[in-house]
């Protein structure tokens, strides 16, 4: 048997009020990989991440992270274990400065080396470093996404969950964000992302997952999914086969 996956989701069930959205989703994310979840709108992709990250209480199933059961644990407990989440859309505090936004990545923790970590991130991402004192709202959409990712890295995670990082970004900015995500993999941080931009996202991923109607229809090496004509027709706009 292979070593246990970094993240293992088994038969996860979750929903809102009377509606069940996730109907027993199972997937695995191996350490040191980029894994991309694709699927039609409303398939439950964002719901999956919210349920894994403890923002939505799971109604069934199990989630294991780094060999430990974490089903339904609070976001704070998960952050402390090295699991971070960048949700879909805008997640910054636009009125606050870039630096202040970064600092708030550790808002739930007492870090003695907070300043040093913030400085290191500002140095690692010069686009942010040059704008450290500016309001986050003056950043471009891509720079804001970058800041969100940098903020998530403040806690030195082992797995980054990121929901549609390319939403609303130009193709150039999308490539830059993807390059940052693959660079994370090379630093030993695993990435699980959701993407509508399936073709380019799978192109940089190790593993692809197809979510449909609240279940995982397929988990396979990204190249295989890209080459699968059925998937092409269903989710990739039909241009692949």
């Amino acid at each position, binding site marked *: 048997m292979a070593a246990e996956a970094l993240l293992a989701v088994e038969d996860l069930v979750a929903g809102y009020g009377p509606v069940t959205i996730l109907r027993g989703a199972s997937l695995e994310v191996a350490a040191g990989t980029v894994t991309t979840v694709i699927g039609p709108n409303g398939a439950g992709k964002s719901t999956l991440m919210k349920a894994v*990250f403890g*923002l939505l209480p799971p109604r069934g199933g199990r989630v294991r992270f780094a060999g430990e059961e974490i089903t339904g644990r*609070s*976001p*704070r407990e*998960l*952050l*402390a274990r090295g699991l971070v*989440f*960048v*949700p879909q859309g805008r*997640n*910054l*505090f636009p*009125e*606050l*400065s870039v630096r*202040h936004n970064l*600092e*708030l*990545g*550790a*808002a*739930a*923790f*007492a870090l003695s080396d907070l300043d040093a970590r913030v400085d290191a991130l500002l140095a690692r991402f010069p686009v942010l470093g040059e704008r450290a*004192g*500016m*309001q986050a709202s*003056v950043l471009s959409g891509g720079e804001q996404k970058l800041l969100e990712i940098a*903020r998530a890295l403040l806690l030195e995670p082992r797995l980054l969950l990121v929901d549609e990082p390319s939403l609303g970004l130009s193709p150039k900015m999308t490539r830059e964000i993807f390059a940052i995500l693959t660079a994370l993999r090379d630093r030993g941080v695993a990435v699980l992302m959701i993407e509508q931009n399936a073709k380019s996202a799978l192109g940089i991923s190790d593993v692809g997952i197809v979510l449909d109607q609240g279940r995982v229809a397929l988990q396979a090496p990204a190249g295989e999914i890209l080459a699968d004509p059925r998937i092409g027709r269903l989710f990739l706009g039909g241009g692949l086969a």
Partner: protein
Amino acid sequence: MSAGRLAGPAIGLAVTILLLLLPLTLRGYGIYLMSLWAVLTIAAMGLNLTLGYAGQVSLAQGAFVGIGAYAAALLTTAGWPLALGMAVGVGLGLIVGWLLGYPALRVQHHYLAFVTLGANTLLFLVFRNEDWLTGGVYGIPGIPRPRIFGLATDDPLVFYYFCLAMLLLVTLALGLLLRSPWGRAFEALRENPVRAESLGIDTRRYTLLAFAIGSAVGSLAGTVYAPLVQYIDPYPFALGMSLNLLLMVVVGGSGRFFGPWLGAAIAVLLPEWLRFSEGLYLVFYALLVILVLVFLPGGLMGIAERLRLGRRPVAG
């Protein structure tokens, strides 16, 4: 750059010297006003935590000053030391403040303002109607001034220095709190509770904490207010004081650490300076508040920030 960096400490030093020496040149009423300023600043700093840092509106802060004042008055007139009154007042403020936070988990903004306004009225009615405990409308006279390390504080000047010391202690404690992860959690809560959740902040817990701590600081102010005025009745703790404290926070600069120092100074001094205008001072005050709200969302401290940072003001 270096001049800007020195400006903060330089202003701090100047203000400290002023606060230490100015009262030596004043007579009874002036010293009383400065003492009142120190006490109201403490209460406003508590509200600034709840409102300015955690983003939760409260129109009940005056009633928490009342809770502290009654705790101190009842215990010290019964012969207990003020320290006990402070412990009890702050403890009650924490508990009642925590309870006041529960509505904030369900409603926000102007709805929350109305809920807390109702709470203020409820507490006022307790002060007024439970006369077996509070003396009702007759109030509690003869509240003694404390002895601090054996030193009597009956002299107005000595008592002023006691008020100032309390203000400095509270300022230091709040400064440390706001630099801790709690301070950052409050800020994230104020900026956007939903976004704060994915940063691991238990917004429920911090909302309750923001009310509990802010209210308890208000009650602490009350425990100093009672020996300052030496006679309390329910009326100061009706809605008026809560509104006044809210204006101090807003005029000084909501979410600006020293905003309440400035806001309270204006609230205490303006009526005196505008005494010549007789009843019109309220009109001037109202105009000032309107101007600040319209033109200075950062309050008066916001101006200082703008001067320091150039055009675009950035909190923190």
